[in-house]
């Protein structure tokens, strides 16, 4: 019979963790190393790669900003209020996570395409979503919003509602209590949700390629180059976006998000 000693347990955890890290890091590292500095430099000098990189990053930022505007209030309501159908609402918010992404693109097209339910109303006004940056933002928003809403909801739920009760008795309106007491305590979690949303947005392919093949975001450009010219041609744009995403993620986590406090620190 195997008896698990504490040291064996932690060793097993470390081995499992190392395997997982290797599983994630190896493809990225292999791709970056394989591309080489020369190829990366050349890619950066290519107009279409630079344009695509800028488009991807900026569209994801726009989607994230929109997500903050519409998603943070919803996250706060979900954290604080009980109402009939709340579980259904939460399920609907998470639906894009389980949508196959090309299916998401098709679904978006039925609403926002030129002949879609909403698209046909907006098209005469000159507002279209197919083959436009607006469509890219829309697709990114759709697939990545759950990451912001879920994370922000948890961040708000971690703030004791009694803080707001005290703030209200001190003269704050509900919005004032949110702005002066709740959000200052939850902002790191909300920002973490925003970073996740942005990261999910820049990596989106399926929904974007259906709704707005052009202009090409980096994932679409990578796919097009792979299909047309093979792995070597696809590596530079892929590597560039991985590096950008890694730098942003690690940078934001290091600078803005606190490290988890240990029990020793808390004592």
């Amino acid at each position, binding site marked *: 019979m195997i008896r698990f000693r504490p040291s064996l347990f932690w060793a097993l955890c470390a081995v499992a963790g190392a395997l997982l890290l290797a599983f994630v890091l190896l493809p990225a590292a292999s791709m970056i190393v394989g591309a080489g500095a020369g190829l990366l430099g050349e890619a950066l000098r290519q107009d279409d790669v630079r344009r695509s990189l800028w488009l991807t990053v900026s569209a994801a930022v726009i989607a994230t900003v929109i997500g903050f505007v519409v998603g943070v209030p919803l996250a706060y309501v979900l954290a604080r209020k009980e109402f009939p159908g709340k579980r259904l609402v939460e399920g609907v918010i998470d639906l894009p996570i389980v949508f196959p992404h090309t299916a998401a693109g098709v679904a978006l097209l039925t609403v926002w395409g030129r002949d879609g339910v909403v698209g046909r109303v907006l098209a005469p006004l000159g507002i279209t979503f197919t083959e436009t940056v607006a469509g890219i933002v829309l697709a990114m928003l759709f697939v990545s919003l759950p990451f912001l809403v879920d994370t922000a909801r948890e961040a708000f739920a971690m703030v*004791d509602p*009694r*803080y707001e*009760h*005290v*703030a*209200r*008795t*001190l*003269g*704050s*309106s509900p919005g004032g209590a949110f702005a*002066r*007491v709740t959000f*200052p*305590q939850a902002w790191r979690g909300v920002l973490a949700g925003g970073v996740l949303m942005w990261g999910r947005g820049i990596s989106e392919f399926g929904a974007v390629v259906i709704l707005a093949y052009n202009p090409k975001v980096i994932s679409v450009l990578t796919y097009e180059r792979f299909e047309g010219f093979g792995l070597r041609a696809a590596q530079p744009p892929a590597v560039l976006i991985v590096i950008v995403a890694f730098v942003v993620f690690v940078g934001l986590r290091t600078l803005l998000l606190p490290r988890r406090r240990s029990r020793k620190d808390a004592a």
Partner: protein
Amino acid sequence: MIGLSGIEIQAGGFRVGPVDLEVQDGEYGVLLGPSGAGKSLVLEAVAGVRRVAAGAIRVDDEDVTALTPEKRHVGLVFQDGLLFPHLSVAGNVAYGLRRAGVAGRAARAAEVERLADAVGATALLKRKPATLSGGERQRVAVARALAARPRALLLDEPLSAVDAEAREGLQELLRRVSHEQGLSVLHVTHDRAEASALADTCAVLVGGRLLQTGPPRKILMAPADEAVARFVGARNVLHGVRDASDARLVHLPGGAALRIAHDIPAGPADLVVRPEDVRLWRARPPAAAAGLDDVTVLPGNVVGLSLQGGFVLIRVEVPDALDALLPARDADALGLTLGAAVDVGVPAGAVHVLPPG
């Protein structure tokens, strides 16, 4: 003034009320009850952060039942202070000054200093709440509540998380604030000693029901029913039957009989005797010499001894179980041990007869 009229609160499947209670200006009211009795729900209702299912709440003769918390002008202090962690102590205290109409940075700074001085927290102003002790947090929380010029102060177990040494200082502070500022205070606690030390008026809430209101001494000496009696520490609740012919004699199930101070109707009688009123001797004292004319003396045996602070709780079988609470010195002098034979004295005037029903 805080006035509750027929207040009923529904929280999930738990119902509180109806609660009727009045705390006058400058009066210190305590809502006393065990954990889970619904005391905090009542406080939340007065603060306006919880809806009432029925009834009316008045603050200074204004019906505030339908008003939002920020319009009620009541201060709220929680058990752990609940200081805003992202603000310094000064920032916490200053939070409500805008509503109080204190305009200008200099004026607000001066007011923060004054309030901090009033609660003994001047040295803490630049610190963050996480660095404060429990007692310090509560002082700052009181200053923060007072900054908004409340008409009444609501305190939810404010001393529970504070050590004994700091508790006395805080009790004195709370009483002083109430009397000096003429504020009505509604203080929620499960601590009987705290209620006795602070309350001008007390209300006992058990299982969501308001069982008794009045001065704490009256509740202590004349509890309204068994639940109140047990909660306020009257450990001896005896269920007997009045003697057929003697209207001041009650027979207990174990065979003993207790004399009471006034006539009661025939039938069942529930008696309450506080343990500190029960006397003990090692030998039956001469009745005349010891002034025991109106004291029931019963022989018994010690079946339990436990030290409680500077007192000893002694359980005696007479054969009904009776608890006595003696100063430790007196218990030592008696040389009590488990199984020791003792005589138990219960003064008739110390026996409270619970109302029927």
